[in-house]
């Protein structure tokens, strides 16, 4: 196991202004995607072409930050070359690492670009050290991003036994399902994270005011109905209200964000290499706020982890940019399960 010297802060960017916001507010690494289905935030108007990526790399490197490329969907058989072309381009442009999920693509990367640093994406669904070590031994993966399913003790066990660095999620929208193992969106709309890089795609969403309230449907499936004055967020399908027997509620998950600021000292002490912030689809202002708060928190925790407390103003700022304006420790906190 590699013992990292300090915890890296890994921040999202869907646009060049967001990348600059992350770098300028203290991100150690920024992760981005190309403008197609090769990454898990394949949203209209988002992501980078080669030129914007080159600009971003220049800005980040000039400020001592790294840029990682998310190539974390599963290549489709008829278009495998689209993913290998993206990988070749990443190597040419000088990305500091690529974040991959597909083993076939990983083998291609290891063979064609042996100098390119590989990270295992959260979409790879590797939840134990045995799974992670598969990618380490076969492809020389240097870091694995953990799905948001493990308790703190389980994360620690993985950190101790994995033969590479471990990155875990610190903040952002929360998948209640194991990343890489959820076909709910493709079942409902025909497009999902693994194959197209989307979840609950906007083009399938319909809002309608009815006598029963404001209704939101995903490809015709009613996800929720809001009474007057009820806040309505983006309709991610697992965060709708459904009926199970006699109860109608958030049967799967509430609209909420993950926030692990309170347990940062434990994560640091157990040897986590990096903390990841979710949100490539969010604005530069979101990226700036979250990066600034987490930079301050990680610096405070690095200086003295025993005295670290999650300051009220940090928590307030993070809650202000959270989905549903509420946060949870998610699976890190056992009762969430």
């Amino acid at each position, binding site marked *: 196991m590699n013992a990292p010297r300090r915890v890296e802060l890994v921040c999202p960017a869907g646009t060049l202004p967001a990348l600059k916001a992350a770098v300028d507010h203290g991100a150690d690494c920024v992760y981005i995607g190309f403008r197609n289905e090769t990454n898990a935030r394949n949203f209209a108007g988002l992501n980078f072409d080669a030129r914007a990526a080159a600009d971003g790399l220049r800005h980040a490197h000039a400020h001592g930050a790294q840029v990682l490329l998310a190539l974390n969907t*599963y*290549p*489709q*058989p*008829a278009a*495998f070359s689209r993913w290998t072309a993206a990988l070749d381009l990443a190597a040419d442009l000088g990305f500091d690492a690529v974040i991959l999920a*597909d*083993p*076939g693509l990983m*083998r291609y990367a290891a063979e064609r670009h042996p100098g390119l640093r590989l990270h295992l994406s959260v979409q*790879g*669904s*590797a*939840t*134990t*050290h*045995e*799974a992670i*070590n*598969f*990618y380490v*031994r076969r492809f020389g993966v240097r870091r694995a991003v953990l799905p*948001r*399913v*493990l*308790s703190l003790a*389980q994360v620690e*066990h993985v950190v101790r036994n994995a033969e590479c660095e471990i990155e875990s999620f610190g903040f952002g929208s929360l998948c*209640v*399902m*194991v990343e890489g*193992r*959820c*076909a*709910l969106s*493709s*079942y*409902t*709309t*025909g497009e*999902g994270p*693994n*194959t197209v890089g989307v979840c609950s795609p906007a083009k399938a969403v319909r809002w309608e005011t009815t006598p029963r309230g404001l209704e939101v449907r995903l*490809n015709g*499936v*009613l*996800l*929720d109905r809001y009474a007057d004055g009820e806040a309505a967020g983006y309709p991610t399908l697992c965060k709708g*209200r*459904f*009926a*199970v*027997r006699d109860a*109608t509620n958030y*049967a799967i*998950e509430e609209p909420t964000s993950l926030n692990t600021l309170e347990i940062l000292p434990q994560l640091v002490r157990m040897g986590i290499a990096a903390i990841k912030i979710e949100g490539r689809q969010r604005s530069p202002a979101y990226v700036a706020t979250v990066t600034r708060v987490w930079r301050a928190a990680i610096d405070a925790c690095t200086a003295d982890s025993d005295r670290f407390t999650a300051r009220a103003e940090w928590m307030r700022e993070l809650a202000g940019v959270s989905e549903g304006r509420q946060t949870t420790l998610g*699976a890190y906190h*056992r009762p*969430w*399960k």
Partner: protein
Amino acid sequence: MKIALGPVLTHWPKATLGAFYAGVATWPVDIVYMGEVVCARRHEYRFADWLDAAEALAAAGKDVVLSAQALMESESDLKALRRIVANGRFLVEANDMGAVHLLAERGPFVAGPHLNVYNAPTLALVASLGAVRWVPPVEMTRAALAAILVEQPPGLATEAFAWGRLPLAFSARCFTARHYDLPKDDCRFSCLAHPDGLALATRDGEPFLVLNGTQTQSHRVYTLVAQIPEMRQLGVDVLRVSPQFERTGEVVAALRAALDGKLTPAAAAATIAALAPAPQCNGYWHDRPGLDHAAAPAAA
């Protein structure tokens, strides 16, 4: 083409499992997958019980495969996995890359539907590590499968998820326990009361999903029975039937009749539709939303 019976995904009492597998011994299935894939807390059958049941089915002429759990979280999950991998008697179905990692040095295995094998290079990789059969992800389209099978590694068989509620997602959270307002660690095995899962409907009363502990399934029943000729043409070798609580034996019998030419695929599809616990779907195969149901092609 062979018929495989998938692992029982829902939670059944020990006596129910015993009666079910006693019946399976007499069914016209070639391959039977056994073991707990969904939740490590389910222990109606212990490992020794699975092995006993597996021996009984092997004695009845079935090819038995031990299925490994899909979502692995703890060291005790890994201990259970190592025990399955080292069983020394039956083929193992890997459902995560940790299982592949352990099986790669030990000879043949089945690459299960939860491994995310989406393309030919990944299929070639798992074949090189010892996979003798693979099950594509349930969301794979006919076109994608056809493109992969053009480059199918020699000696590797393809098994399609052909009938049953689709295992769509896994979570660390138990949705059945959540429904009963119980913590997962003290779930009181509330899923035992729902042998076909717990139905989830939209607020306008449309059945949508089925909660099965930490797994979420489709409410609709996936069916590729009418597509048997297409699948045969593509090179699919095995059809998987995923067990439901009732009438699975009749589904298998109709499927067998179709494979043996005693029923047309269309007639078998109609028979099986009447046995399904819910409306059926086949959207994934046709590159549409999974819950869609495309009409059978006229020439089938």
